């Protein structure tokens, strides 16, 4: 496994298997009375969030704490970036305090990758612009794999705002590595430009017709419609979007029995997903949240617990 986790691109199928194996054990820990393992005792992890996030940040925070790391959250609002400090200065300042791992979310694609150039410690990408959100894709695939047994040959529909979605990009990569077949469904305005060539290279299918796709899939993954995009003219009205691409009550009947429904959250109930779908017995939305902690524990453990490279003198802290 590489030192940093910037994207699913960095992982082999074997790496993903290892991460899932560990996550399964971490999942058991969640059910224990004492939810604490000493593996990262004395290590410090900083959650550096330049973009709003509740679940990803708290999920990383819980994951770090259950591994006994000290976790510090820094959000851009109310931090020195709002006073004009550059990304580089913020990162260097934070790491100069003696940090063993950085979890970064930023609105610019490539921010996490850029940060790896400046610091010695492992960097975990918690979402960078429209690029990748690897831990989300890992937890989605892990949840699905636990539910379906194996992803080999399974057909998964990913529905929603594909143009702006880093979750889509990461999921596409991870599902492909695990042998699943993906059909991407979106209105033409939210289908990425040049998707035809991308789909041909990456081996996924595309469709503008949700009703046609639903009866054929083994799982359906709804993506959030980002309300901030509404003014961009991507679709005429929320109602129009729901009619064409929302997982509505009538559409549930198109799915085969017990086909799992996923949503990375936060959900816009009534927009891309109806309450009947979100709360259906086949909905894995809450399983995804608890899997998120297990996956992030697994990632933190594998990247931070060992010392894969020989220590450089300047990285030996407190010795």
């Amino acid at each position, binding site marked *: 496994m590489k030192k940093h986790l910037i994207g699913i691109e960095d992982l082999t199928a074997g790496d993903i298997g*290892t991460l899932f*194996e*560990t996550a*399964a*054990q971490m999942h*058991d820990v969640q059910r*224990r*009375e*004492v939810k*604490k*393992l*000493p*593996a990262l005792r004395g290590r410090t992890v900083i959650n550096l969030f330049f973009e709003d996030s509740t679940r990803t940040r708290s999920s990383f925070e819980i994951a770090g704490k259950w*591994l006994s790391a000290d976790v510090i959250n820094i959000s851009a609002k109310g931090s020195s970036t709002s006073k004009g400090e550059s990304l580089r200065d913020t990162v260097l300042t934070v790491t100069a305090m003696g940090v063993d791992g950085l979890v970064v979310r930023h609105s610019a694609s490539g921010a996490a990758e850029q940060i790896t150039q400046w610091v010695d410690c492992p960097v975990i990408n918690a979402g960078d612009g429209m690029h990748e959100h690897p831990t989300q894709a890992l937890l989605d695939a892990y949840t699905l794999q636990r539910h379906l047994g194996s992803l080999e040959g399974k057909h998964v529909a990913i529905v929603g705002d594909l143009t702006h979605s880093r979750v889509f990009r990461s999921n596409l990569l991870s599902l492909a590595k695990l042998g699943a077949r993906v059909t991407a469904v979106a209105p033409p305005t939210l289908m990425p430009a040049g998707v035809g060539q991308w789909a041909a290279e990456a081996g996924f299918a595309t469709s503008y017709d949700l009703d046609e796709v639903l009866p054929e899939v083994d799982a359906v993954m709804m993506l959030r419609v980002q309300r901030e995009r509404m003014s961009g003219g991507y679709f005429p009205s929320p109602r129009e979007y729901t009619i064409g691409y929302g997982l509505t009550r009538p559409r549930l009947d198109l799915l085969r029995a017990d086909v799992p429904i996923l949503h990375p959250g936060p959900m816009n109930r009534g927009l891309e997903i109806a309450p009947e779908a979100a709360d259906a017995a086949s909905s894995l939305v809450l399983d995804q949240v608890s899997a998120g902690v297990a996956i992030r524990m697994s990632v933190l*453990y*594998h990247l931070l*617990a*060992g*010392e*894969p490279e020989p220590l450089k003198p300047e990285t030996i802290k407190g010795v």
Partner: protein
Amino acid sequence: MSPDPNPAGAEPAPALGTDVLPGRVVLDADDIARALTRISHEILERNKGAADLLVLGLHTRGVPLARRIASRIEAVEGQPVELGTLDVTMYRDDLRNHPTRSPHRTELPASGLDGKTVVLVDDVLYSGRTIRAALDALSDLGRPSVVRLAVLVDRGHRDLPIRADHVGKNLPTARAERVGVRLEETDGVDEVRIRDAAPAHQEGPR
């Protein structure tokens, strides 16, 4: 227990086929079977029966040993004995020195550990660090009333004040020597070998 250890290099284990294993066999299948039977009886005697007994195997080779001990106790007592597995990877004090590996599964009976007599089972007792980690793991999982330790081989050289309650065989060794326990379930053959320093694989001390 092992009256006639073979000379070095003699009689390679046939079950594994091609490679000739280095070192000499100090315990063969019969010796191991006898040692486990004795340990099982000792556990019963010490515990005055099988009440509240939980036999807990440490990954990797403690798990099949624990299973064998539990089935022997069951045969004697005529009632099932609780069996579990414990992985101590996350509790090791040398995590930083090794590339990380995935932890194995920790499986406990639904009734937990509280108030029970837990017998930890491992293959080789060496530095005592694995047992230290196991004791830490146990305290996160519950509060056993008593914890005991059964090992197939005690090779000495403790780093910590830890001792075993039940020992299959005390094996005086030099630190440079390697003790390799191989079991039917994991390696296809039952034997304990001792040899001079060699690649550390399937060794007791890790």
